[in-house]
């Protein structure tokens, strides 16, 4: 009981600290902006890197996330944590960046390139990983986002649901669908896991 009480007090103190930090940031305090950035940047960058698969895009998206968040702090409602809010912005921007990048690559990909991409890969570990990455990139956006957040980056379904504004059950269902689609896509490598 004493431990629970201590934990509750610590949580309340953290919440109060966060509110004070946000209030300072709203008033334009540069050190508060930096503190918010330092607290959240690693997770945001890791997630955007996982989703985009590109250092360049991950940097752009992460920077844009904080620029927009600082500009929009007045609109942030404190019924959610600021980390959740930042994740929500970051995922939205990352998905837009992926769409835009894909469109540009599609424009620049010749038919020959497309044929070489479609050639089945022989069975070996690095090539299996390439095929897996390709299969992951072909997943529907919702499945792919949940799969990367859960299986690659270790978010819980509760965290995913909060960040994406969906039900926890939806997150679980999307993950199960992602895994099922991947299993079908990688059927020729079934010996690797059986």
């Amino acid at each position, binding site marked *: 009981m004493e431990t629970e009480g201590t934990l509750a007090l610590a949580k309340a103190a953290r919440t109060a600290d966060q509110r004070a930090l946000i209030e300072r940031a709203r008033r334009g305090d540069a050190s508060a902006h930096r503190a918010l950035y330092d607290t959240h940047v690693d997770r945001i*960058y890791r997630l955007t890197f*996982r*989703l985009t698969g590109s250092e360049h895009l991950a940097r752009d998206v992460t920077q844009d996330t904080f620029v927009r968040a600082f500009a929009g702090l007045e609109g942030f409602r404190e019924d959610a944590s600021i980390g959740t809010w930042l994740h929500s912005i970051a995922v939205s921007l990352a998905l*837009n960046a992926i769409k835009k990048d894909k469109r540009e690559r599609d424009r620049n990909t010749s038919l020959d390139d497309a044929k070489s991409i479609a050639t089945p890969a022989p069975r070996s570990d690095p090539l299996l990983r390439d095929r897996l990455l390709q299969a992951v990139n072909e997943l529907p956006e919702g499945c792919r986002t949940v799969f990367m957040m859960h299986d690659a980056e270790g978010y819980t379904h509760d965290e995913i649901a909060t960040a994406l504004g969906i039900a926890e059950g939806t997150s679980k269902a999307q993950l199960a669908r992602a*895994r*099922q689609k*991947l299993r079908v896509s990688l059927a020729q490598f079934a010996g690797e896991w059986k």
Partner: protein
Amino acid sequence: MNDNLKDLFDDDEREPVTNDAGFDAWIANVAPTLNAPGATPRHEMWREIQAARATAAEAQAGTVAGVTPIRRAPWRLLSVVAAALLLGVAIDRWALNGRTDPASVVSAPIVDSAFNDPARLYRLAASQTLTQAEALLTAFRASGPEERAAVGGDQLARWGGEVLGSTRLLIDSPAGSDPRLRALLEDLELVLVQLIQLSRGSVDPNDREHVNRALEGSNLLPRIRTAVPAGTPFSASTD
């Protein structure tokens, strides 16, 4: 924001039957190696963020060439709304009824030639959407108590929904190649989502104030006015 992400997911929470614990264990082991990030470039990104914020602050202060400070005169707002509505009706009529009376639509010759050029058509569509957005956001931001009574929260949410739909189509359009316009549309999308969320049901004065401050923070209205300068076919600029 969450509404935007929710679009990616259906509400079906049923999990498909997998029955392959071996694959699940294998994938859980392999997945962390996919797109594994290196060290976070904290300092470089922080410098970029600072630079972007400084530019935005200069634009807000009106020290960036071509950016017009926000105007507040109520008659200008009303004329923006009226002009946007008239132009929207004229364009819709022309598009639906064909070119039966081109003289009645000021911009008809320009629209006609635009059909031969996707990039030009995209710019015209963007101008129309941004004009609508400017009217909506300006009215929302600066309307007085009497206008608020006339334009209820539900109506604002519906209007915002229409502009948001057009904005998302423009963002997703393959014809959109201008990175500055795209960034503007994405900022607009975020603010519209916020505005719609807050406008559903009743519009609380504090919530209005939140959106107003978010608008000021993102410098959205001056950027829209810069993107749709006075004199372009669908402009309803206050200049």
